[in-house]
């Protein structure tokens, strides 16, 4: 059910994520942030936060558009 963030490399989706053992796990994804949040809460995850999926999660320069 939980997916490693670095394995989710389809960019542009909204991810509902949790932090477990200091690393991020994806619990739901959708084209809409609200829908992603709703999906995650339906799965029973209350402490989630939202972020965007990307091809890279650490090796970019902030604000650099591609």
């Amino acid at each position, binding site marked *: 059910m939980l997916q*490693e*963030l*670095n394995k989710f490399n389809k960019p542009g989706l*909204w991810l509902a*994520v949790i*932090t477990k053992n*200091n*690393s*991020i796990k994806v619990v739901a994804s959708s084209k*809409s*942030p*609200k829908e992603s*949040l709703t999906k995650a809460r339906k799965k029973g995850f209350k*402490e*989630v*936060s*939202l*972020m*965007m*999926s*990307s091809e*890279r*999660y*650490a*090796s*970019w*320069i*902030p*604000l*650099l*558009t*591609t």
Partner: protein
Amino acid sequence: MKFNYTLIQDKFLPGKKTYLALLDINLGENKLPVKCLIDSGSPISIIHSPLAVAAGVTPIDGKKGILLGIGGEPIKGYFHKITFSIYGSNPTLCTVFLTAELKVPYCLLGQIGFFENYKVVFNLRKKFFEILPA
């Protein structure tokens, strides 16, 4: 408050991993939980506009503006006053930049909007950072 650094795996980095100072904030009246990168290099806090909309903010009600990326590319968006809170702290009203053109996966907590309100102590060696009221 002390927070742990988040381990991020990225195959393009030497060692294929790094630790980022990521912080969850509650955004807007809807208290939308959003993952943000603490980015002292950013002059202003930058929020993905779809998240702002979900948080109950209408981006086009703000003042239109353009920021330049580190590579010089213009990024269009809107300056807005928005409230956010960190782990149950009192909501802070501050100016942020809302844009749909930010390609970074996290929202950015920059100088205006975040560092002007909070003091941050980074301690990567011990894998934690601390946030205190300024």
